[in-house]
C-alpha cells in the first residue's frame, strides 16, 4: 500500500490540532482571579486618600444589589492565578484574608478569614464577567466587602 501525500498533510494537521487542544485545555484549567477588599460608605469622600473608587463594572454590579451605601472604595486588590484543585491565599488587610480553591469547570471555593478565623466558605460557579461578593457591617454604618472575579 502506498501512502498518498495528502495523508501526510492530514497527519500533521491532526498533530497540530491535538497540540492546540492540549494547550487550550491546560489554559482552561487555570483561573486568573482578582480579589478586592472594598469599603462601602454613604460618604462621598473617603478618609483614606489611598482608597480609590471601584471600577465602573464592579460599581454597577454592587449597585445592582440595591445596598444602602452609595460609594465603594478599593482598600486592597490582589491578582493571582490558581491551578485546578489548587488553593491560593491573598491577604487583603491585616485582619482580612481570602483563600480561593479552583474546583475546576469554573467553580471556586472562597474562604473568608477574619483575624485568622474562618468566618465563611462559599462554593460557587464563577464564570468570566460575574462577581462573587461577601460582605458585612463595619463601623459607623459602613460595610466591608470582598469581591472576587475572573480576569480576562
Amino acid at each position, binding site marked *: *500500500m502506498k*501512502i498518498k501525500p495528502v*495523508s*501526510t498533510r*492530514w*497527519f500533521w494537521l*491532526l*498533530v497540530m*490540532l*491535538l497540540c492546540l*487542544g492540549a494547550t487550550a*485545555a491546560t489554559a482552561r484549567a487555570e483561573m486568573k482571579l482578582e480579589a478586592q477588599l472594598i469599603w462601602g460608605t454613604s460618604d462621598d469622600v473617603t478618609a483614606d486618600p489611598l482608597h480609590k473608587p471601584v471600577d465602573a463594572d464592579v460599581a*454597577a*454590579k*454592587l449597585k*445592582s*444589589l*440595591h*445596598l*444602602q*451605601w452609595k460609594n465603594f472604595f478599593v482598600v486592597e486588590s490582589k491578582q493571582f492565578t490558581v491551578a485546578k484543585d489548587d488553593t491560593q491565599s491573598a491577604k487583603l488587610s491585616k485582619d482580612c484574608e481570602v483563600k480561593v480553591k479552583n474546583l475546576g*469547570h*469554573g*467553580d471556586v471555593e472562597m474562604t*473568608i478569614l*477574619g483575624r485568622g478565623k*474562618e*468566618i*465563611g*466558605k*462559599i*462554593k*460557587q*460557579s464563577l*464564570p468570566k*464577567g*460575574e*462577581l*462573587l*461578593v*461577601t*460582605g*458585612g*457591617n*463595619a463601623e459607623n*454604618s459602613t*460595610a466591608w466587602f470582598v469581591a472576587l472575579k475572573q480576569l480576562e
Partner: protein
Amino acid sequence: MTTEQQLKLQAFLDGELPEGEARDVAALIARDPEAAKLHAELKNTRQALKGADAGMTLPESREFFWSKIKREIERAAPVAEPEPEPVSVFVTLRRLFVPLSAVAALVIIGVIATKQFNSTADAAATQGTVTELADAGAVTYHNYETGTTLVWLSYPADDSTQPKTTVQ
C-alpha cells in the same frame, strides 16, 4: 432354461466348473437347443473380445513415466509470491501513526465531550451558592441579570446581621 443354468453355462465356458458339473453342462448343451444356442453366442462374444483386449505396452520405463507425471504436477503448482519490497522505518511509522492519531483524536473528542457534559452538570449543580458559614444568619442574594452574588455575613458580630438595602 433357468438363470442358474445360464450362469453354469458361462462358468463352463470359462473352464471354472469341476469335472462332474462340467459333464452335466455338456450334456445339457447336447440335448437342449436353447442351451446350445446360448453357449454358441457366449463363445462368439468371448472370441470377439479376445482381440480387443490386447495389453498396452509403454514405450518407456515405469519410473521414467512417473517422473514425467511428477514434473508436470510440480510445474502446475502455484508460483510462490515474490518477496515484498523493503519498507523504510518512516513509512512504517507513518502507517502506524495515521490510524493511531485518528483513534487518539476520537478518544480526546470523547473525553472533552464527557468533561463538557460533566461541566454542564456541575454548573447546574452549583447554580445555587453553597455556603458553609459560622453563623446561621448569613444571607445570600443573587442578581442573575448582572451576574452578581452577595453573601452577607454577620462579621464582625453586631446587632445588624442583615444587609442594609434600599430595596427589599
